[in-house]
């Protein structure tokens, strides 16, 4: 039954006061799941139902064919990460969850950019690509397609650099990540 006593508008401060513990930083969750039908739907459904927003999501096989790894990033300023991981753990097909420590993690994302680059702009674009150690993988008269790999921040920075030239299209994979080896280097 709806609560008529509930205010229709809440201030931001009230919202913050009512929430759980928030870390305020980006979190990368590495989730090992059983390679079974419906697992991704369960996870996506859980996020939708509990009101968690996924920033990026990447799914792929692992060294063990019975398992898949889901790497997802979400904003710790928006969500109590603790609740997110506990709810994920309740899914029977979820085997292991790691909230990767940024300092202890190697993370990469791949992005494709179609940038308009004709005449004089082309040289400048190519320079930026070089600085970011990107690759030009297709060229037409009007535009180039660039492949960039790196952390989420690097991709963001690259996007900022090429946007002024005219960003026609962009596709990003979302970050994948694994923790660094311990004491092996």
């Amino acid at each position: 039954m709806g609560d008529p006593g509930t205010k229709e508008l809440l201030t931001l401060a009230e919202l913050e006061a009512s929430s759980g513990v928030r870390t305020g930083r980006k979190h990368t969750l590495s989730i090992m799941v059983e390679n079974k039908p419906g697992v991704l739907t369960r996870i996506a459904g859980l996020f939708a139902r509990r009101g968690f927003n996924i920033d990026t999501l990447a799914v792929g096989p692992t060294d063990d064919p019975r398992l898949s790894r889901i790497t997802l990033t979400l904003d710790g300023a928006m969500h109590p990460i603790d609740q997110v991981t506990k709810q994920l753990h309740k899914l029977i097909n979820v085997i292991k969850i790691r909230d990767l420590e940024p300092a202890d993690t190697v993370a990469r994302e791949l992005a494709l950019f179609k940038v308009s680059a004709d005449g004089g702009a082309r040289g400048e674009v190519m320079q930026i690509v070089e600085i970011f150690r990107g690759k030009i993988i297709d060229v037409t008269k009007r535009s180039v397609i660039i492949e960039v790999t790196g952390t989420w921040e690097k991709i963001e920075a690259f996007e900022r650099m090429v946007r002024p030239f005219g960003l026609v299209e962009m596709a990003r994979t979302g970050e994948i990540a694994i923790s660094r080896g311990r004491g092996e280097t």
Partner: protein
Amino acid sequence: MRAVDAVMECLKAEGVDVVFGYPGGANLPTYDAFVDAGIRHVLVRHEAGGGHAAEGYAKASGRVGVVFATSGPGATNIVTPLTDAMMDSVPLVAFTGQVRTDLLGTDGFQEADTFGITMPIVKHSFMIQHPTEIPRAIHEAFHIARSGRPGPVLIDMPTDLTRAEIDYQPVGDLRLPGYQPTTEGNQKQIRLAAKALANSRRPVLYVGGGVINAGASAELTELAISDRLPVTCTLMGLGAFAAPHPQWLGMLGMHGTRAANYAMDEADLIVAIGARFDDRITGKLSEFAPRAKFVHIDVDPAEISKNVPAHIPIVGDARNILPRLTAEYRAAGADPERLKAWWERIEGWRTQHPLTYEDSSDTEIKPQYMVQALYEATGGDCILASDVGQHQMWSAQYFHFAKPRRWINSGGLGTMGFGLPAAMGAAVAMPDVPTCLITGDGSIQMNAQELATCTENGIPVKIFIMNNGYLGMVRQWQELFWDRRYSHVDMGSWPDFVKLADAYGATGMRLTEKKTLVEDMRKAIETPGPVVVDVRVTREENTYPMIAPGAAARDMVG
């Protein structure tokens, strides 16, 4: 053997003695297997009734309830019971038929995406893709349903796969690498909790349905009486601590007692056991128990600090944790005298604000009195099921539950129509305990068809309809919060429940006289078979006391 015969073997191996269900096209093979299986199948009159009956069976017995439904509409009809079971942590296994695999995804006749539709409302589900998967899926389903925090599990079986021949071998192991519920509480945390309890001057034990699910009522009582610790229960926890009892504060929450709610408000330490700080308990969250520190014991780690941050979390099974907490508490050597002032305060609230209502001076039956009369007529020695609404709250307030698994109701989801089928399931599970149902004239009509199931199967549920001709709880809210603008809450005067009972082959009675009510109720209870008693009560009576929505406990009204 056929996969469906293996289904029957698996059910027997799980100790299933009775299932509830309804056949249809896609589960014809399963129903063929029932013919020779030697498992009792109760044919319900609607799949929703089957799902709630399985819930009632599970709640009354502690065993896993089982329901069968066909594909499409059969499956969508059990969506409500599955959600209900999820909210109230009821162990349930649901078998749904599905169209044959070559029709999947083609919008075939009676096809519905059961797996997809039910995903958010089950603890887990299996979509069978190969007939040989069926036996393992069934055993895993039962294990998941009954262990950890119990819940519903669904198995969707395409009809062609169930007809296939398989080489059935009993399953000896489960392969659930992602499912290892923590049952054993951390010793350090338990010691910490015991010390906090020993140092507290105003403690309250706040007990939920988890204690009943864990079968930990005796262990809870042991802890409570190891000192004079005050106990309150949620709607779902009623019966976990024997009422009446000197340490029993009554139910807490929206329609709980003032003693319980005020004690929560002033407590310095609240030990929550198998409870989840629902909004019907906390009221305004920011003003909930403002002076208290929280010990939170729960088998589901996701419940801890979900709504209220816990100072001392303990994840595990209450039955494992409570005896150890009691031992540590005894070892801590708390001074019982420290609780004296606290009990004086509680006694003050009890004397000043007992549960009360203005009784009629004539022959009119007040709804609260109706519950008291049933308590007197049964001596409290029965399973009491309820539906949802005012009658449910009055039942929770005025019927005293001395044992666990004697109070069967829909708490989290608040499902009208739950009562009759759930009472039926409870009666099937516990044939030696009389089963009564208090329902409303609104609720009963949401699954009244199950009267036929009761008469056909000789299930002797005694149904007491608290008939005020209104959707009482909605009417109460319209009166209190919507300026008495009554909108679609008047149920009129039909059907004639006595005639309805008669049509279904049950005994019907109508009671309007307060003076003879207890005696008349006794007669109804002594009448063999299902009995429908239409009790005419005061039309406009409100459920009090009440924490208004969004208000704090200390601002209770009524």
